């Protein structure tokens, strides 16, 4: 037997032993977690065994570990293991699985019914296969060179416009039924919130765990102003933003000296204070009952109602009433609000104040040595982030028509923060993609009920392994001497809070 053969045999047997160990741990864990299920029978509570599920879990762990060891986790031994299985065979196999996964996903989107668990398995497997293909084979290189070629052509400069066009015509497409439109509105709301928080966390590097407070301020500001003073949505919108920005500054002042964990704790507390205040100030906010009957926005004065009278949308345009009209209008409002957020943020990033935010994230002491008033820099970041949170909040209020403190829990803050971190701190497009994945992706797995949080956790773990700096870890310089410069992820700091 040649040396190569012995090395291969050794690598394979080591991997097998390791995979068996993992499978044993999986077996031990799945006995209490998966093997038994309680079932309510008319007479008593019954235990039902689920050994096939256990077997499946153990098999997944075994195969998964083996694949990881042989194909993914051993970069220094990768040539060895590639020889072991053969790069082309492995690439072809994974490509095949990935392709099947894609076809299934599209098939499902196109309307074929696949049971929830099978959909989950297929998507998971194909998704993992995709990642492995990208990591390990020349397919990744093909995509990379394709991307490089694309960025060299004029096509990329049309890409944003094409995206905008797609977003603009989306409600008119046949796929846009009530459910999809509602989902799109929700995704866009989170995109806007993510972009708002991105200013504070991603650009200025200040870890804010209480962002939902500003969302709540915006929502209640609109609800109360509209109900008590009869102001319209378009007047309340800037007012809500200003109020939220004011609260941002108010929060900013006491926490100016804090950094890192301390800042995170205080902002977390602030978020809770606002929620508990809303819960207990019965006379103003209605407490846990919330505020209902919040006026919906009108289409330039035309209301959306089923009577189709002279002042209504359907009456004015002489079309049949549809509840979709209002949702389409909401879609366009949030689209414009989100785009406004993006536009302002991108522009401000290229202004001295935005550059100061990023400098603050990189090194606060150096900022002060250069004569930057870091107090003002921090407050401006808090105020601006809070303002967009306030806009989103008042949109949320007008969309729902009903708000209560329950919509503004810490869970919301955590979700928005996760989007910013997952998207890549400071990157607009990354945050948008993360919002789509996290809100839309969770919808995909709705059938899995509680297990979808498990999927969510899994996605997070995989992300941290493969792309610890988020989807887009690099940053585009705010000003360049020559076109096309990019700062790679390794040099960009996360800030210290």
């Amino acid at each position, binding site marked *: 037997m040649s040396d190569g053969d012995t090395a291969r045999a050794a690598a394979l047997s080591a991997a097998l032993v390791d995979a068996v160990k993992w499978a044993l741990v999986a077996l031990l864990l799945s006995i209490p977690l998966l093997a038994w299920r309680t079932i309510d029978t008319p007479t008593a509570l019954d235990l039902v065994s689920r050994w096939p599920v256990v077997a499946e879990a153990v098999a997944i762990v075994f195969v998964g570990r083996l694949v990881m060891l042989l194909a993914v986790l051993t970069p220094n031994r990768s040539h060895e293991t590639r020889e072991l299985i053969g790069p082309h065979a492995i690439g072809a196999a994974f490509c095949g699985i990935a392709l099947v996964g894609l076809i299934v996903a599209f098939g499902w989107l196109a309307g074929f019914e696949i049971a929830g668990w099978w959909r989950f398995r297929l998507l998971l497997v194909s998704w993992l296969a995709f990642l492995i293909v990208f990591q390990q084979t020349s397919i990744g290189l093909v995509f990379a060179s394709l991307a490089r070629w694309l960025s060299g052509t004029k096509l990329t400069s049309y890409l944003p416009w094409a995206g905008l066009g797609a977003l603009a015509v989306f409600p008119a497409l046949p796929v846009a039924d009530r459910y999809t439109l509602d989902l799109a509105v929700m995704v866009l709301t989170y995109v806007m919130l993510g972009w708002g928080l991105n200013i504070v966390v991603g650009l200025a590097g200040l870890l804010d765990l209480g962002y939902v407070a500003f969302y709540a301020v915006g929502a209640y500001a609109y609800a109360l102003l509209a109900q008590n003073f009869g102001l319209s949505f378009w007047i309340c919108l800037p007012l809500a933003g200003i109020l939220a920005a004011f609260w941002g500054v108010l929060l900013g002042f006491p926490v100016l000296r804090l950094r890192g964990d301390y800042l995170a704790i205080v902002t977390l507390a602030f978020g809770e204070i606002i929620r508990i205040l809303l819960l207990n100030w019965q006379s103003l906010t209605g407490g846990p009952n919330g505020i209902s009957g919040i006026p919906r926005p009108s289409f330039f004065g035309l209301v959306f109602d089923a009577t189709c009278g002279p002042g209504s949308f359907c009456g004015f345009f002489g079309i049949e009433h549809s509840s979709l009209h209002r949702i389409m209008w909401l879609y366009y409002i949030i689209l414009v609000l989100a785009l406004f957020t993006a536009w*302002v943020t991108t*522009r*401000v990033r290229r*202004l*001295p*104040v935005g*550059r*100061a935010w*990023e*400098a603050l*994230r*990189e*090194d606060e*002491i*150096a*900022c*002060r*040595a*250069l*004569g*930057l*008033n*870091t107090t003002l820099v921090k407050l401006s970041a808090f105020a601006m982030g809070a303002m967009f949170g306030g806009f989103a909040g008042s949109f949320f209020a007008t969309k729902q028509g009903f708000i209560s403190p329950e919509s503004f829990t810490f869970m919301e803050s955590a979700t928005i923060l996760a989007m910013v971190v997952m998207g890549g701190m400071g990157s607009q497009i990354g945050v948008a993609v993360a919002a789509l994945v996290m809100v839309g992706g969770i919808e995909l797995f709705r059938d899995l009920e509680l297990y979808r949080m498990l999927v969510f956790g899994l996605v997070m773990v995989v992300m941290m392994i493969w792309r610890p700096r988020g989807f887009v870890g690099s*940053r585009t*310089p*705010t*000003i*360049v*001497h*020559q076109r096309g*410069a990019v*700062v*790679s992820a*390794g*040099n*960009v*700091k996360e800030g210290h809070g």
Partner: protein
Amino acid sequence: MNTVPILSVENLTMRFGGLTAVDSFSFAARRGDITALIGPNGAGKTTVFNCITGFYKATEGAVVVTREDGRRFDLHRMADFRITAKAGVARTFQNIRLFSGMTCLENLMVAQHNVLMKASGFSVIGLLGLPSWTKAQASAVDLAMAWLEKVRLADRADMAAGELSYGDQRRLEIARAMCTGPELLCLDEPAAGLNPRESAELNTLLQAIKSEHGVSILLIEHDMGVVMQVSDRIVVLDHGAKIAEGTPAEIRVDPKVIAAYLGVDDEEVPGSLEDRR
């Protein structure tokens, strides 16, 4: 030209709890001079520096800067960022503090923050993109590029500062400090970690800053090659107190300084190995 010293430090005392790091220290830096502050490790040089630039608040004493136009600033009463913004004092750090994820050009743009902030109308004019802002930004870029040219980093303007080599980072930090438009430049060990060729370049750069831009320099340095060549005056600090002050020639032969810091060349020491043989 204004003959009042640009910087005068009077009876500066800094105590950390029971430890007196700097004890009633006084000196003056003349306008247009390169003044070096030397002394053994732990003598309190960086503490003095931090007191001047406002990063520490001195326990006692006064630090006064007089600008070219005659305005006086009591630095011991000012916040650190105001010292740079108003009194025209810029500094670099012993452990380089660049914005490593930002490009060289961006680093120099941040240094011009206060000027640009006004020009951008506190972001309002900038957000609207009015011509006055575009013009101000273009001239800021010109200034930054001129400094990058001067420290020979112009071809790396769009490179992340963290990607530069150590010597380049040192020079970039000096260029960044200069972009704040200072009258007094405080450098904390600018030659640390540089090779002889880079130290020589640093000498030329410091001379150019002094002669072409009329900026006074205060310098902490251990590299005697740099100190003796570029400085006009040297202040020697030991155990938080001044032990000598004078021109490089005077300092070189000062017995107290030799005993405390410089040491002597081997051949001058009586009873050394060679003599005994």
